[in-house]
């Protein structure tokens, strides 16, 4: 991987490099499945589910990784090095990008929830992976919050089979 010549500036081409293959449901290649990075295992589970859906729907996967930066740091200079975060996320998605493009968006922010709510398009399809239990985990709370804001959210529990155990907050229309 080449280092950018001009630190702080580098081109990001967000569009698919190759034309999309014919869709299996007519939704087309612009259909996006959003995955929110929660925990390592949770995100694995969500990505696994997302990659199956994406293949079937000819969809693009976007992995959102909100990284909370303490206020003592500049928001652009987080305590966890950016290169490290990006490398870690790249290795996470490595197994799922064999036949599709995955866009990883790292969002440096002060608060997780407002950040996620800001970056998602209205009425997005969102997969959140994590542990399911009572009392609710942070991941479950996030899924509920996104659902409350009108997104179509699927919670993917880490310890159960996927997608049989998918908790659907709102069904994706056929």
């Amino acid at each position, binding site marked *: 991987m080449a280092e950018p010549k001009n630190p702080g500036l580098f081109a990001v081409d967000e569009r698919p490099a190759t034309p999309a293959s014919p869709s299996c449901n007519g939704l087309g290649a612009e259909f996006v499945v959003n995955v929110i990075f929660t925990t390592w295992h949770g995100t694995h589970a969500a990505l696994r589910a997302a990659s199956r859906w994406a293949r079937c729907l000819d969809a693009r996967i976007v992995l959102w990784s909100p990284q909370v930066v303490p*206020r003592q740091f500049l928001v652009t200079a987080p305590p966890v090095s950016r290169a490290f975060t990006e490398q870690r996320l790249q290795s996470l998605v490595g197994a799922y990008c064999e*036949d599709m493009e995955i866009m990883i968006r790292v969002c440096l922010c002060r608060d997780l929830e407002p950040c996620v709510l800001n970056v998602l398009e209205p009425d997005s399809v969102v997969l959140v992976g994590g542990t399911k239990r009572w009392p609710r985990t942070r991941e479950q709370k996030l899924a509920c919050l996104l659902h409350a804001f009108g997104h179509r959210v699927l919670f993917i529990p880490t310890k159960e089979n996927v997608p049989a155990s998918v908790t659907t907050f709102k069904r994706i229309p056929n």
Partner: protein
Amino acid sequence: MSIISSTQSSIVAQKPGLPKVVIATTAMLLFISFWRAAAIVLNDLGSSAFYAGAIAEQAIGKAAPWFILAIMLFAYAVRSMYIESCSMFVRGGVYRVVKEAMGSTLAKFSVSALMFDYILTGPISGVSAGQYFTGFLNDLFARSHVNLTLPINSTSAVFAIAVTIYFWWENIKGIPESSGKALRIMYVTTVMVVVMIAWCILTVWVRGAHLPPLPGKANLTFAPEALGWLRLSSLPHTVALIGILIGLGHSVLAMSGEETLAQVYREVEHPKLRNLEKAGLVIFIYSFVFTAGVSFFASMIIPDAIRPQYFGNLISGLSMNFVGPYNLRLGFEGFVVLVGVLMLAGAVNTAIVGSNGVLNRVSEDGILPHWFRHPHPRFGTSYRMLNLVVGLQLLTIILSRGDIFILGEAYAFGVMWSFSMKGLAVLVLRYKQPGKRDFRVPLNFTMGNVEIPVGLGLITVTLFALSIMNLFTKQVATIAGVAFTIIFFTVFEISEKITLKHGAKHQELDMFNLESDGELTPASLSVRPGNALVMIRNSNALYNLAAVLDRINPRQQDVVVLHLRVLSRAGSGGDELSQEDLFSTNQQELFTRALSLAEKRGKSIHLAVAPATEKWEGILRAAQNLQSSTIALGISSWRGIADEARIAGLAWESLPEPRPQLTLEIYSPSGQEHVFYLGPHAPRLTNKEIDLLHGIWLELSNEVAPEEIHHHDVVHIALEELSREIHDGRRQEIIDALRKHLSNNRQRRAPNT
């Protein structure tokens, strides 16, 4: 509301034939309300209420609550000094402000003192939490008839070590810390404060109480260790001012945490300064009631004979001496301990994160070796800095053996010297950078052309007087503080010299991610139609952006800031532009300044850069694509305003249909605004024209009654008549009349210009 300044990066994969993984990192700054800002500051400031009163009473006797009260009032003045510095530097902590005012050497001294403050915040907060926790356990053991009493100081030290190690590990892993968490802690704390004050009032009402003795000479009983090197002198007992300064010097802990105000200012929403003032007022009222209230009520409610045993956990002592059933009091003590541990443990974490942040900043500035910033192999954090900070904190806890008073003494050194240097810097800036400020510390007079900032001067003199007095009265603090500051200062000096030798110079610029090959559309920039398009080209001439930001309501209209790279026609053909061609360091600096202006006003902007072969074609195309309603630009240095507007109008005619109606605003550096309308638009009528129109309407409305006639009907008929006359051979007559009208207008305006 948000500013989305996108940062760096992307890693585009990989081996040929494989699909892409694209990584983009974006920074998102969400502006926060003044309530949330106040909660963040109070989280740091409020924790001192748990120990400041007791430390002061131990040192100066029963009159201590009056000194705490005085310090809380003085803290309001210090806060106004912080607000003035924030109004000048959006991203200005002690280091930045002192560097700007008095140069790098004193800035390094200030940051060394600040580091000492941070290093001590952790141990004092951890030990204080330990004292509350241990005190509660001992009370529980006594209630359960368990014959066990934990040694307060050593158990507190162990507790503090455990908390520090826990947060060290969390920071090594890179835990998130949100302002939402601070707000939730403040909710719980507020419940505790309200219940505590209500119960205090009830207890005083039932039992009666006396106010603590006034701080007269007779009532000041200094503990021997509170006088330090002055214990051999009679001055503290004979000169009232010195006695008062010593008393205040032992109470200054109550206002530690003000530096957080500078940290949150960047994120406070519009109207930024007014919101900061509101946050300052909320902080003042809350900390005044909480910190001073605890100190006064403790003195009034806890009997003198047993109060010293609660000096480590004064609020617990207060709750155990309320009126009411024992179990209820014990339950409230448990609640106090829970809140105390939450706040104080939070302060331990804040101290670790804060010192890590400061060290990272100075390392970026090249005054600390980059070796310290080496990322942790597993978690990517700057673990060497964390190890250094936490190592020093653990050493401090062990050396103090959990004695909160020793820690309190030492802590005051860092707090006071960083305040004093900041005060001096703001004062120096009054002369070094005179001119307009959005906020000034009150009480300013002018003699001739020289400003005399009495208020700011008094604050600075008081801060220095307290700092100097503390040098003599706090031996441990002076020795430890001076040694620490000298060591850090020396490291900073040597490191900076090495960095300069290697030619690395840090330039503080934001980083931006350029998302290329897209059309400029409202969707691509996430803006609403009807936005204001502000053109920028020179980082030293952003007055048009400032003017637009001043008047715009971000809830109603978005602001797009566009930099147009005008390329020669020869250069525009052929190969596509590279990112570096379009966005060099100059553009980076330009956008950094633009973002800084927006941050200062707490308003959102959306940044874009676009290439064009012709200026006005590029601007109008961008406005058309973005569905903007307004274009704002600065005055041209080589073209008159009217000429600029005329060329814009001609370029507008060349736009493809449908052509948008646009308002063109041209600003001069003085802030004067010249407005032009591009495309068909409703004219702005003068009062005289409106009177004329209304007169005709009145006259005709009677004629056509009972038919209804409107003003626009009159305009319609008049325009049709004018058009007909132009085409019926009266063209020259009408043009002459028009010329005469324009000439009259010009003559009327001439005296004003």
